[in-house]
């Protein structure tokens, strides 16, 4: 609205609430019409979608109105819907402030990554709050164990955002291996996407501790970091803008000599919550015709690994349309919020931190576009198609793996379940797909 409207204060009186009922067609009124009484998940979703489309068409009024309504629902200490709404609202505001360009304001408060740094032991507890991460670890380790049978040397190249939390249980299992433990080498890239959970120590320090533990378990161990352009920058200092650059740099190091591959070792590629950070559009990568994601998979295939495990969240959140991302995001991320609600009390700080990290993800998915939107999640079925197209064959999971997952889930709340879906093993919460795990080999694999 323009300034002269503001100049004339006029009282607004809403004559008659039932007026709304007789005009059901307006977007906002219509959205709320079915929600008289309490605002439930479906209503909130509608409101979010309205806000998204308002922002897309730069309708400040409607956007603001919807945000105002959402604000009344939002609560960081409420039920899962309220908490989710709170984070979504935050992301929307972030986007709104960017969509309304005001050069003299560099409101970066929202743009910076979550700065909460955890200790390693805190992170160890973090990944155990709900089986969200542990599921992937369990399935992957079990598949890896099977794939490296008979090898006396194993080399795992680890792409993940959980700083080697996966490996202690593998080390433990290797130590007990019937034929004795192999020599285990773990290589990690020095670049890690600037996303939570963040540690207060370097990757090298983590490697040290892991080496220590391996020593304690009598497992011969080596830890390497792929040095690249980002090696001298702590993770939290890396900005989203340089994300693609760092990835390109990493991929350029991706060859047998830089990775110090050996012929007598079983090569394992472990990708947990990682592929989503590789841009999928060809235009995002300057040098290649294929997208970075496909290029990465080609490189992996060329290295001829014994097994490639890919674990990630089962949702399509990388589409161009804001409104479609909004709906999917809301419905999908309700799952961990609901799981946390069941597992932890309302005022648990661990829970709120976990939720804040999910909030970071929401902010990136909803609040950003282009290079800055680094979270480009792809569902398991799409990923599977991509892998097959890239020349990989899926490896089925055996009964032992299934049994291990079942025992894992038995120790958590009863809403967690597991199911097999095509090539994937999927973790479910109350029947909804949450995390998928898959295992692959190059389809022209030759035994060394």
């Amino acid at each position, binding site marked *: 609205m*323009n300034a002269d409207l503001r100049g004339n*204060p006029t009282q*607004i009186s*809403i*004559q008659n*609430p039932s007026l709304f009922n007789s005009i*059901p*067609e*307006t*977007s906002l*009124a219509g*959205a*709320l019409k079915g929600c008289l009484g309490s*605002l439930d998940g479906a209503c909130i979703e509608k409101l979010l979608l309205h806000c998204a489309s308002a922002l897309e068409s730069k*309708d*400040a*009024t*409607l956007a603001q*109105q919807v945000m*105002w*309504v959402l*604000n*009344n629902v*939002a609560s960081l*200490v409420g039920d899962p819907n*309220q908490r989710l709404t709170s984070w979504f609202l935050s992301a929307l*505001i972030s986007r*709104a*402030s960017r969509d309304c360009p005001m050069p*003299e304001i560099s409101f*970066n*408060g929202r743009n*910076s*990554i979550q700065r*909460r*740094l955890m200790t390693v032991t805190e*992170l*160890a*507890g973090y990944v155990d709050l709900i089986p969200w991460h542990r599921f992937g670890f369990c399935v992957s380790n079990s598949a890896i164990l099977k794939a490296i049978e008979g090898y*006396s040397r194993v080399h795992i190249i680890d792409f993940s955002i959980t700083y080697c939390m996966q490996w*202690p249980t593998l080390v*433990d299992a290797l130590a*007990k291996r019937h034929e004795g433990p192999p*020599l285990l080498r773990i290589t990690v890239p020095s670049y890690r996407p600037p996303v939570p959970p963040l540690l207060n*120590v*370097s990757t*090298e320090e983590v*490697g*040290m*501790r892991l*080496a220590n533990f391996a*020593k*304690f378990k*009598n497992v*011969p*161990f*080596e830890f*390497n970091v792929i040095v690249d352009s980002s090696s001298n920058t*702590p993770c939290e200092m890396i900005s989203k803008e340089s994300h693609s650059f760092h990835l390109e740099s990493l991929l350029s190091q991706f060859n047998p000599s830089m990775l110090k591959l050996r012929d007598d070792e079983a090569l394992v590629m472990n990708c947990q919550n990682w592929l989503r950070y590789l841009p999928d559009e060809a235009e995002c990568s300057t040098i290649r015709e294929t997208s970075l994601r496909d290029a990465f998979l080609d490189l992996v295939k060329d290295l001829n690994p014994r097994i490639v495990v890919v674990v990630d969240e089962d949702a399509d959140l990388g589409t161009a349309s804001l*409104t479609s991302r909004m709906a999917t995001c809301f419905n999908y991320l309700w799952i961990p919020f609901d799981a946390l609600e069941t597992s932890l009390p309302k005022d648990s700080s661990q829970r709120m931190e976990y939720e804040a990290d999910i909030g970071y993800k929401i902010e990136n998915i909803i609040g950003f576009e282009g290079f800055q939107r680094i979270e480009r999640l792809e569902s398991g079925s799409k990923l599977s198609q991509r892998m097959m197209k890239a020349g990989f064959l899926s490896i089925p999971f055996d009964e032992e793996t299934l049994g291990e997952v079942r025992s894992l889930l038995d120790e958590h709340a009863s809403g967690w379940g597991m199911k097999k879906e095509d090539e994937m093993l999927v973790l479910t919460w109350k029947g909804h797909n949450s995390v998928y795990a898959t295992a692959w080999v190059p389809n022209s694999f030759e035994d060394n």
Partner: protein
Amino acid sequence: MPVDLDTSSAMTVSTASGGGEASVSSSGDQTTEPPQPPKQPSAKKKRNLPGTPDPDAEVIALSPKTLMATNRFVCEICNKGFQRDQNLQLHRRGHNLPWKLRQRSNKEVKKRVYVCPEPSCVHHDPSRALGDLTGIKKHFCRKHGEKKWKCDKCSKKYAVQSDWKAHSKICGTREYKCDCGTLFSRRDSFITHRAFCDALAGESARVQTQPNKEEDPKVQTAVAASSPPPPPAMTAQPSSAAAVSSVLPTQSPELPEKATTQILEEAPATAAGLNGGCSSSSSSSSIGSSSSTSVFASLFASSSATASLQSQTPAFTDLVRAMSHTDHASKLASSASIEPISLCLSTTNGSSLFGAAGPEHRQYAPPPQPAISATALLQKAAQMGAAATNASLLRGFGIVSSSSSAVQQESSQWSRLQLEPENSSVTAGLGLGLPSNASSGLKELMLGSSSMFVPKQTTLDLLGLGIGPGGNPSGRLSALITSIGGGLDVTAAAASFGSVEFASKDLGRSS
């Protein structure tokens, strides 16, 4: 059909698939489709697999109410409930009431199987019926019932009391304890924690004090897999390794000689340990300690090494490399001064956008009120939102620009967008109809919109800070920013708000 009551007529057995709550179809010799599983010999009372019933059996469908009812048989005098009619009859004797115990009938009792009333359940189908009344009751409660029983120690909930009791017996009994004192009920959590815990790190730190000395070729054969140095007599518990190694510092000066003999003696055990299981090896391969890895290494070199030992060469050098790399990296890290800047959403404040973190930020509605009337919200939204401008949008959320000229430009741009389609038809309900339509439609509703948008007051309402109208403006603004910016330092924000230069606070940029 009579309504199901807590009497023995709760189930009906009939051949017709009649109506009413309890309808029954008889399988086996009477109707068309016998269940798939093969016929079991009836001589022995054999226990079938769950859900593979005897095809000759009579299928009984009980109602949900019956299945969940615990005490179906009630004494008319004292209202005491019993699970079985027999028990009620015996009880009735005590009231001097006529009682009758049903005799076990002479003819062969027809086997009964039970189906689950829940249509979506796999046991709803007669071919997957369960053979036991208690079983079907428990199944129904577990799968389709409310979990009323909760374990005290963990968060697990159960619908069946016996399940809950069984769990409570074992909950917390299997516990793992880390040296640091933390308890774990799950092994994988314990292992992961242990691997990274300071307690483990501390104990081996001594062993790696002089990484730079490792140019010695003898050192190259040192094993990265050597276990931490506990003295010979120790228990099989890994945790004792830590306790024991704390003794080491006092011994270290004299140790090399002493260690030599010890190690040589135990070397075979160590070699065996390398191939054996982990926990046993850590206890059996009691290697004397030394303060320097080089001593260690040379001793291993002299022992009759297995093939695996020799292959450790690159392992050790790389480990060393990793360690020296660590020193370098950690120096970098500390110089980069990772101070906890309160920009993030979850700060020590615990504050976030509209959260009720700090004491000075109160929520609009004290603890969440899910039952807010949508119409009330709509009214309010329209009241304050109709005349919004671009700047107001941002101002409403505490983002204010110091120069207003840009604002005017933007706002006129935006108002143009909005005022144009005055009379377009509005789209229906959820349809993500053109918002401009919506807002104009809304305007019609609101009878010409032009309510004055008073930034400060309305803003406060918007954010629900509950700050009174008489407050000091910059205080309000800074409070707003704090609540929006999720933990921005209030004073800094208030001070720098004019120029709104947050670059210095943003770690993403090194300015």
